[in-house]
């Protein structure tokens, strides 16, 4: 027999709240909660009967009445201030014992983030899925240039950081050298074999090689958005930026060696947000 259950209430322990975001849309209140154990919950509820309860909950979190969101310092791994195409963004990386984070460096904003909750003031981004080796959340908010400058100054943040590639351990280095030498050996053998073989498809192969070279050369793109040009970026970076919601349908791009701009929507027809 199928039982029908109506949830008539949900209580959240404020001591377990790491971050809370709320937004009112007409007669509905939207809530996203990030807990100190890495779990999340998001739900909607009728605004008229829950405004008082929400204010009460805010007071337990020591939030101002005017605020609609809070991030507890204990769950903040760090913040990254990003300037991109005329806009400024603040990435707040959330960290709890339940999450495994990617390396926290200047490239954090280029990861393939997925937006899992969005309000007018903030986007909640998720990297990976629960159970993945690396899984975490970040909050992305757009800030003004003045705010960006002030926040960087007030927090004494390290300025203009550049990521440095990790050095590979020697064991891996030798292994890699061995693999490359083996690959080169195979390549030489194959080349010698083919040089003795006069095949008719030489011309076809050469055209394929030329095409591949051209493709590699043109694999970097300049982006044009909001009357500013940035780049060149590798296609991989553009794909990541697109996945992170940093690009929209008005963005245009052109290959590094071309003067022809194309709409980015033609590259990612179904993925770009309006």
């Amino acid at each position, binding site marked *: 027999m199928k039982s029908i259950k109506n949830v008539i209430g949900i209580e959240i322990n404020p001591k377990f709240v790491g971050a809370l975001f709320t937004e009112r849309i007409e007669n509905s209140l939207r809530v996203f909660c990030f807990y100190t154990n890495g779990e999340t919950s998001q739900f909607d509820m009728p605004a008229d009967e829950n405004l008082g309860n929400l204010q009460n909950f805010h007071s337990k979190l020591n939030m101002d009445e005017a605020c609609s969101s809070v991030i507890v310092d204990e769950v903040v791994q760090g913040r990254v201030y990003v300037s991109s195409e005329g806009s400024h963004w603040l990435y707040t990386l959330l960290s709890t014992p339940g999450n495994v984070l990617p390396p926290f460096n200047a490239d954090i904003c280029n990861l393939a983030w997925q937006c899992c909750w969005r309000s007018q003031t903030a986007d909640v981004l998720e990297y990976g899925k629960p159970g993945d080796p690396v899984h975490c959340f970040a909050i992305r908010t757009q800030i003004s240039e003045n705010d960006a400058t002030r926040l960087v100054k007030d927090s004494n943040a390290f300025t203009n950081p550049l990521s440095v590639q990790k050095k590979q351990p020697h064991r891996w280095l030798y292994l890699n050298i061995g693999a490359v030498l083996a690959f080169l050996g195979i390549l030489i053998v194959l080349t010698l074999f083919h040089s003795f073989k006069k095949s008719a498809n030489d011309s076809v192969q050469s055209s394929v090689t030329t095409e591949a070279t051209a493709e590699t050369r043109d694999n970097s793109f300049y982006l*044009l958005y909001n*009357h500013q040009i940035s780049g060149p970026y590798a296609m991989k970076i553009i794909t990541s930026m697109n996945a992170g919601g940093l690009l929209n349908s008005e963005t245009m791009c052109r290959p590094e060696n071309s*003067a022809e*701009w194309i*709409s980015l929507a033609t590259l990612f027809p179904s993925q770009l947000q309006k």
Partner: protein
Amino acid sequence: MKQLACRFFGVVCLLGILTSAAGGQPASDGSDKLVAQGNTFRSNGKLTEALWAYRQAAKAGNVKGAFAAGDMLFAQGQSDNGRERVLKLSEGIGYLYFAATNRHPQACAKLANALKNGIGIQTNLTCAYAWLKLAAQYNPSYKPDLDRLVVLLQPEDVLQAQKIAAEYISGHWPDRVARPVDQGDSRLTIQGVSVNGNGSLIILNGGTLKVGEMINVAPVRSPKHAATEKLVVSCFEIGADYALVAVAGEPNLKMLSVEPR
């Protein structure tokens, strides 16, 4: 016999002229010499003579001559005021258009600059980008200028400009980039002009006319025109000593002078 030889020579000469005129590259040795002569005049500071030489070369279809004439007139027009400015810029743009449509990169870039800044022509960033793209196509040193201009455009205008540029490159040129200006029109007379900051106006054939307005006027009586045929005249610009108007149905603008009393 002598007559026959003369006729034969005449036919050969005529054929030569026609072949030269019909050819894609009408510039001849003679017009090149005129351009060289113009350059010498210009470097010696004899600008009137230089302009004469360039104009002659341009009339013979010399692209370099047309560009040089357009460039000179454009520079002079920018430093002039009033009627002279309008006439020189208009003529200059005409020569630049001829050179640009003969794939002269500098002429394309000059036209782009005029369209970008609204010098002697209405501002049109889309067309400016299209002409500059042409310039960059023929001379890659203009590519950085393209990036400086593209940031002023909206995305849809960039795509439109590239489409226009592709049409130009394939030889589908616009009929013109600006309306040519004729000096005077026997059917139209300015009886008075009032120039002030609030809005200038002219009295044209008995009617008053402001910039952007249109009126019906009876032409000045002349044997050429019937007295009953009314003209629809619109006003584009009013200066202290001139008015720039257009007559409906006629391609060229009319530069009407205000006669001193």
